[in-house]
């Protein structure tokens, strides 16, 4: 029997297949035919202090081997989330990590304070730092080492649950940001969030995305995600959760070899939200075929 279990901080996950924020709702509202209990964990869509309507359409567009989205963090807000969603997690059969987003340091902190004030089955928080900081002229938290450090430090002081910092690829040096997160107490980093992209309808001359710029996701950026993970792997000791363009179990293996200890599936859920469950068996078979006992022994083992 291959051991697919992995450990992040003090939490053990039954397998390393998670779903990515913004592509699997709150975890409790997925189609019936999906058996979420098979997944290692679910990362919720980004939750903010106040509810958000999101951006006007068009919000998404297809691109070569990928898509661009600009949803605008549409979500119910933390209060509604605590009241209506969190209770359902007690029977969901998998682990829930709540993804949080904010536009000031205080907003992030306030969300965690609220969450920590109730008992819940949430095992940790993933911090979406690809959000504009309104106090710094809209510069994203995640592009700045010191902002990332400050944010991580504050949030670390508020919770003993898992603290996972989700890194933006739209930076010169992603490993430096990862190091800042590690130094300030993050249990893990996840990488990557979407890459800034754009698409235009050449007939109407209109942007295919209302906000003009959006986030590129899907297989197109798998090479970018892998490179990010490999770079981070050489810089930090905490686990890395690999994200970007995964569609099959061999992609998962690639991410492990590059240095990931777990992965998240995003865009693939839009084609088939049950992709993750099917990967579990495939990963077991793979490990058996190459005679490894534990999937963790693949981490960072790429050769050149």
């Amino acid at each position, binding site marked *: 029997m291959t051991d697919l279990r992995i450990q992040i901080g003090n939490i053990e996950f039954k397998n390393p297949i998670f779903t990515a924020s913004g592509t699997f709702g709150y975890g409790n509202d997925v189609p019936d035919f999906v058996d979420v209990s098979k997944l290692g964990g679910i990362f919720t869509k980004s939750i903010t202090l106040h509810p958000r*309507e999101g951006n*006007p*359409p068009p919000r998404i567009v297809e691109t070569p081997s990928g898509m661009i989205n600009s949803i605008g963090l549409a979500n119910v807000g933390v209060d509604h989330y605590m009241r209506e969603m969190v209770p359902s997690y007690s029977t969901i059969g998998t682990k829930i990590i709540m993804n949080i987003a904010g536009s000031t340091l205080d907003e992030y902190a306030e969300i965690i304070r609220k969450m920590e004030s109730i008992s819940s089955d949430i095992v940790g928080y993933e911090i979406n730092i690809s959000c504009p900081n309104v106090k710094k002229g809209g510069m994203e938290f995640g592009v700045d080492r010191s902002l990332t450090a400050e944010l991580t430090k504050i949030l670390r002081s508020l919770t003993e649950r898992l603290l996972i910092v989700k890194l933006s690829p739209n930076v010169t040096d992603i490993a430096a940001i990862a190091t800042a997160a590690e130094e300030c107490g993050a249990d893990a980093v996840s990488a990557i969030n979407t890459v800034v992209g754009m698409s235009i309808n050449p007939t109407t001359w209109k942007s295919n995305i209302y906000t003009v710029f959006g986030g590129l996701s899907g297989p197109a950026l798998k090479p970018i995600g892998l490179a990010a993970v490999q770079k981070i792997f050489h810089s930090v000791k905490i686990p890395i959760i690999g994200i970007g363009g995964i569609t099959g179990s061999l992609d998962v293996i690639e991410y492990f070899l590059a240095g990931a200890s777990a992965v998240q599936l995003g865009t693939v859920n839009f*084609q088939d939200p049950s992709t993750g469950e099917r990967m579990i068996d495939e990963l077991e078979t793979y490990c058996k075929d190459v005679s490894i006992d534990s999937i963790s022994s693949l981490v960072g083992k790429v050769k050149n």
Partner: protein
Amino acid sequence: MLIEQCKIIRNEEIAGGIWEMEFSAPGIVSYYTGPGQFLEILLDNKWSFTVRRPMSIANVEEKRITIIYKIFGRGTTLLTESKVGGILDILGPLGNVFSGWQGNYVPILVGGGVGLAPILNLFRECQKHQIHSKLIIGAKTGREHFMDHDPSNGIFLTTDDGTLGNPGTVMPSLKKVCADIDNPMVFACGPLPMLKGMQDFVIQNKIPAQLSVESYMGCGTGLCQGCAIKRRNVKEKAHSYHERYSLVCMDGPVYSASEVSFD
């Protein structure tokens, strides 16, 4: 709702640029609830097409489903190349249904362009239930039509260029038909300009109406939040999650005409 590997039974051009495809889908049919519902079709498994293409259900016969599609871009072009006997990966059924057509109204069914399919489905359903309905189908030109203009049986074809049936858009025909009927209720699906005109007309004339709307869809299952459409008459206020936008794949595609905004 489920994902099914569906065997193609028929795939043929039924009018200029308009194709009809029939496939076997026992699983999807077992969940099917009525006209208005749609499918999400995966075009290949190589990520040349990231998102599935939404297509309305045009007919359900035993365990078989028919769709009617118009060649629009590269996805629908590829669909025309699908061979009988081949397999399509289809997610469905999705969305809500037209409702109220079994009530005390005379259903006026209006379809244009890619909006034909659900309207023809509803038309057949009315016939099955022996509900006397009127059918108005619009097209740019005669060669895009595949039915007969048959006003005496309540079937009106229109063409923008006047080459078949009533000249002009569906609007003049709709107005005329509505004027002749006591208790009309409109059910429509079609391109945006048509739905806009329709909405103005039915609201002004206080005619109850349901519109099946379109939206760029990423998933069809509520996960991507891409298919948002504006709600009508929502007061601008912050913190009102899901008041300003509705997800077409979950709340639609069929809306009461007064619910949605096309601006």
